[in-house]
């Protein structure tokens, strides 16, 4: 029997040497004349164990990790394709607590299947949602998504079904589905992992969105910093088109839908939906004023659904298992599951999909295992560069849109960056302003000018120049940015800045000029 060896090709695994491991495994197979094949997969998201190598046994998968190229010979020596013990043996990957504690709905296949094998996709439940959607009326598809309680996973948390209904209700010669894959927030990589590890689920979700709203054309706007995601997504679209999942007749139905990948050009602000639309149109990625909503006048002035990767990738399971099944997970108005990304200075960093409602402390300490450096946690930033810094005092906050908002934070795209006690929160606040200045599209004054004035004023505080007056000035400036900016870049930069000031006042005490200028 041919042995199967699974080695990830997710960027995170590649960054830790997965290609070298795969090449070493190929050499060993050839040298030993073994009957074995290598399947490249996505990642299950346990990055402290990557590259994870798995083998198929009659009892299921057995994992080994973290595997370095130099370990490969010893794995073959130990006859690991039979699942034998080895110092790197991890056993059944599904039984590793980090995996067994998750509820994998959106990421059910990620890390398990060959991302570009439609057979794998179908064997693991793929296309069931799309087939279901084809038996329903478009308005029933929209209703199912509305009933599931799914909210925009990009960060804004707007109900996906309502957005779809608005587009479905428009009469137009052409409508679009735009997938926002401009995942620029630090600590987030869920979109990247899905596109690299299970691209067909995104295609399926977009096709369902097309059927539901009457849109016939889709774009996936992927940031240029993700070359592997671009390659996998592009290849998957071609495979789906050849298989009749995309094209003039989706799976033989009268519904037409096709899509293509567009690559961004290194502008963080293009993750904002209206600047993304401008960028797709070939313009500067400048924010548009709303109204008109993109659902009414979006891409090229046509009604447009613009959803995050994870929102769209969660649709197939909702159609397949039903709205009630999905809605059963979560709490309050935050329903279903959310792929939490645990990053930065953390022992067990990775992707953890779970129902809403875990506390921040459980995520950071129980799941994440505390800091990688072993030092105490000082702060965690939740929601990327525009998210608030939370001190351990607030670790009882449940992971829920409203609960975070009530504590002057946001869950955003559900990325969590852990910092140990060596972090300097004044420096983090300064960086938030600096990043806003670098990435501002320049359209509105509070963001364009405010961010630069913010950096200067924080530098004055660091230098001990009238610290009380300047702290008040920063608070006032943040107020102006929050309420006077057109989009979340200027509007949310105050979250990291003010949370750093409010929760870590000791870091804003005067210091030497030399230190601040560093």
């Amino acid at each position, binding site marked *: 029997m041919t042995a199967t060896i699974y080695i990830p090709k997710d*960027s*995170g695994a*590649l*960054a*830790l040497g997965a290609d070298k491991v795969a090449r070493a495994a190929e050499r060993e197979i050839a040298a030993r004349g073994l009957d074995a094949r290598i399947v490249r997969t996505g990642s299950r*998201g346990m*990055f*402290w164990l*990557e590259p994870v190598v798995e083998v198929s046994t009659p009892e299921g998968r057995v994992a080994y990790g973290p595997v370095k190229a130099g370990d490969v010979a010893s794995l073959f020596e130990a006859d690991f394709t039979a699942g034998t013990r080895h110092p790197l043996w991890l056993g059944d990957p599904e039984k590793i607590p980090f995996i067994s504690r998750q509820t994998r709905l959106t990421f059910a296949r990620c890390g398990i299947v060959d991302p570009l094998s439609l057979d794998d996709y179908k064997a693991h439940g793929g296309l069931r949602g799309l087939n279901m959607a084809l038996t329903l009326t478009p308005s029933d598809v929209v209703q199912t998504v509305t009933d599931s309680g799914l909210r925009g996973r990009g960060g804004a948390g707007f109900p996906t079904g309502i957005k779809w209904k608005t587009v479905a209700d428009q009469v137009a010669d052409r409508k679009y589905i735009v997938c926002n894959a401009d995942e*620029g*927030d*630090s*600590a*987030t*990589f869920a*979109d*990247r992992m899905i596109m690299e590890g299970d691209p067909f689920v995104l295609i399926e979700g977009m096709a369902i969105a097309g059927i539901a709203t009457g849109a016939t054309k889709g774009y996936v706007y992927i940031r*240029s*910093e*993700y*070359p*592997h995601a671009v390659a996998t997504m592009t290849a998957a679209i071609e495979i789906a088109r050849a298989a009749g999942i995309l094209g003039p007749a989706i799976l033989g139905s009268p519904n037409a839908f096709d899509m293509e990948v*567009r*690559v*961004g*050009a*290194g*502008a*963080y602000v293009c993750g904002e939906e209206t600047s993304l639309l401008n960028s*797709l*149109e*070939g*313009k*500067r*990625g*400048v924010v548009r004023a709303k109204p008109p909503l993109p659902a009414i006048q979006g891409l*090229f002035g046509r009604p447009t659904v613009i959803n995050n990767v994870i929102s769209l990738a969660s649709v197939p399971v909702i159609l397949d298992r039903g709205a009630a099944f999905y809605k059963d997970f979560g709490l309050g108005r935050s329903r279903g599951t959310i792929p939490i*990304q*645990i*990053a*930065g*200075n*953390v022992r067990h*960093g*990775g*992707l953890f999909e779970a129902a809403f409602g875990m506390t921040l402390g459980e995520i950071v300490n129980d799941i994440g295992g505390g800091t*990688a450096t072993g030092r105490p946690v000082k702060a965690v*930033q939740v929601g*990327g*560069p525009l998210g608030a810094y939370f001190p351990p005092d607030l670790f009882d906050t449940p992971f829920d849109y409203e609960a975070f908002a009530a504590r002057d934070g946001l869950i955003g795209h559900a*990325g969590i*960056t*852990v*910092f*140990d006690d060596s972090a300097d929160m004044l420096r*983090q606040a300064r*960086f938030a302003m600096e*990043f806003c200045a670098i*990435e501002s*599209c320049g359209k509105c004054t509070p963001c364009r000018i405010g961010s630069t004035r913010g950096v200067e004023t924080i530098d004055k505080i660091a230098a001990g120049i009238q610290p009380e007056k300047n702290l008040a000035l920063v608070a006032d400036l943040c107020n102006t940015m929050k309420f006077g900016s057109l989009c979340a870049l200027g509007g949310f930069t105050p979250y990291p800045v003010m949370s750093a000031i409010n929760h870590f006042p000791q870091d804003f005490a005067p210091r030497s000029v030399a230190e601040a200028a560093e």
Partner: protein
Amino acid sequence: MQPSGTKVKVADVAARTEAVVAAHGHLEGPLLPILHAVQDEFGFVPQDSLPVIAKALNISNAEAHGVATFYHDYRSAPAGRHVLKLCQAEACQAMGSDKVAAMVKSALGIGFHETAADGSVTLEPVYCLGLCACAPAAMLDGEVVGRVDADAIDGMLAEVRL
């Protein structure tokens, strides 16, 4: 800082740009794909290519210039033979990306957005490579590197000096 031997003739730029535009003319909103392809063709977006693109797309020179200069990716001059990007975003900051940057800058004798005098390498900051659970991260000529430490820096520096 422009490495020698990369000067391109104006007429040549026009002809090659026209070919790129022709290959992408069927797309909706073709300007970004065209600029990416022009950069792939020349290694940067030559100033002389912009009027050619503008004319073909029936937009003003100012619009073409405005778009080409809005996005961080488009270069107005060629990069070095290698491009090294160091992630400087929060998750990497939490794992000492500032120290990585300082070591690389000092070893190469250049700062961010600069190219070594011998044209070997251009150093750039990048704000997130999506490798936040194996920080600090870097990208050398499109290849991703995670948990960058002193050894990884030495390896990358050896590669760029080849």
